[in-house]
């Protein structure tokens, strides 16, 4: 069976490489969890991937490298809709975790053999487990497959509601990073093009915004005002306000501290 995983158009590859000790495992499992989430796997599946990678990396550090702090290994994730393929490659001592005897748990104390629990867990948690020793070293491939989460369960979406006749409130939630910013941009454009140009942007639930997010707000502001409407921001967290000020846009937006103030202000101009 081939150890190479070819990337296709719909498959993205992310990888992390370094001299990792036990202390790096939380970082690596976070990396894998993010990849599994991008693959739209559900919470349980994501947790299984994290656990399996924890165990696999522990084995590499313990057995392939004998806890040598200079051991280098790489963890790669190939992301597809509903599927994540994880590969751990190290150049340590040849060690095939899949051939370790299964652990034995028994009421008879003397029969208990806890060794091999790690790989046993990996096999139970993942859908496919393959090991190969190649010129790259030890290559362990793990696959998790699941029903991809429906779109609306994955993206934060941009909540929009008509607060009062003709007054629309747009209330993004959480971290408006560059990916969400595109959604925000589209949402604002759509609203204005539908004639809904009296907009209050409620940022009470926004903890973070990159410049793309702010660009989206500026673009929405321009479009709303050019079409004779109004565009007001409210409830901005200090951190996000600091970003707006750094960019120098503190002066152009009409900003209110609370939603009710903003609604009052927009009703006055309507």
């Amino acid at each position, binding site marked *: 069976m081939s150890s190479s995983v070819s990337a296709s158009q719909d498959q993205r590859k992310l990888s992390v490489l370094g001299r990792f000790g036990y202390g790096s495992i939380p970082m690596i499992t976070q990396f894998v969890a993010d990849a599994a989430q991008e693959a739209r796997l559900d919470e349980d599946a994501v947790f299984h991937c994290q656990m399996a990678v*924890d165990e696999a990396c*522990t084995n590499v550090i313990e057995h392939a490298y004998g806890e040598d702090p200079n051991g280098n290994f790489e963890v790669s994730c190939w992301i597809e809709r509903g599927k994540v393929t994880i590969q751990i490659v190290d150049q340590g001592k040849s060690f095939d975790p899949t051939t370790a005897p299964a652990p034995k748990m*028994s009421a008879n104390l003397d029969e*208990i053999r806890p060794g091999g*629990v790690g790989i046993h867990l990996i096999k139970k*948690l993942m859908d496919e487990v393959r090991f190969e020793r190649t010129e790259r070293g030890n290559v362990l491939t793990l696959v998790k497959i699941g029903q991809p989460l429906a779109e609306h369960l994955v993206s934060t979406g941009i909540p929009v509601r008509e607060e009062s006749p003709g007054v629309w409130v747009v209330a993004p939630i959480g971290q408006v990073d560059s990916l969400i910013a595109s959604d925000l941009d589209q949402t604002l454009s759509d609203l204005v093009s539908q004639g809904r140009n009296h907009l209050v942007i409620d940022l009470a639930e926004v903890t973070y915004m990159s410049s793309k997010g702010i660009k989206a707000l500026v673009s929405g502001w321009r479009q709303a005002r050019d079409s004779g409407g109004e565009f007001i921001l409210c409830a901005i967290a200090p951190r996000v306000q600091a970003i707006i000020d750094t960019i120098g846009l503190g002066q152009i937006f009409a900003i209110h501290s609370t939603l009710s103030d903003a609604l009052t202000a927009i009703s006055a101009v309507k």
Partner: protein
Amino acid sequence: MDVKIQEMNRVDLVEVSGRVDSSTAADLGAKMNERINNGTLNIVVDLSQVDYMSSGGLRELVAALKRVKKDGGDLRLCSPSPRVREVLDLAGLDTIFQIFEEQVKAVGSF
């Protein structure tokens, strides 16, 4: 990871919190061993504040179990979160440990 040990009438109550993984498991093992070396026979490990446990942690629990059983004691678990419970079950530890939902029942079982 934090370990708080309370000496009670018939058992030592070991309350663990945080992550029990390859970097912290040895510490848990060492603290239990210290008690066992001092004569503790019966241990209840309360897992309610453990948000994550990997095989390293499981191994320490099994090692401590074997030690106390040799001397006629026992080690029982209580209050694992659903995730930790899942790991215990997958590893087959539910067949060698008595696992209780509540601390008071676990302590009372001795």
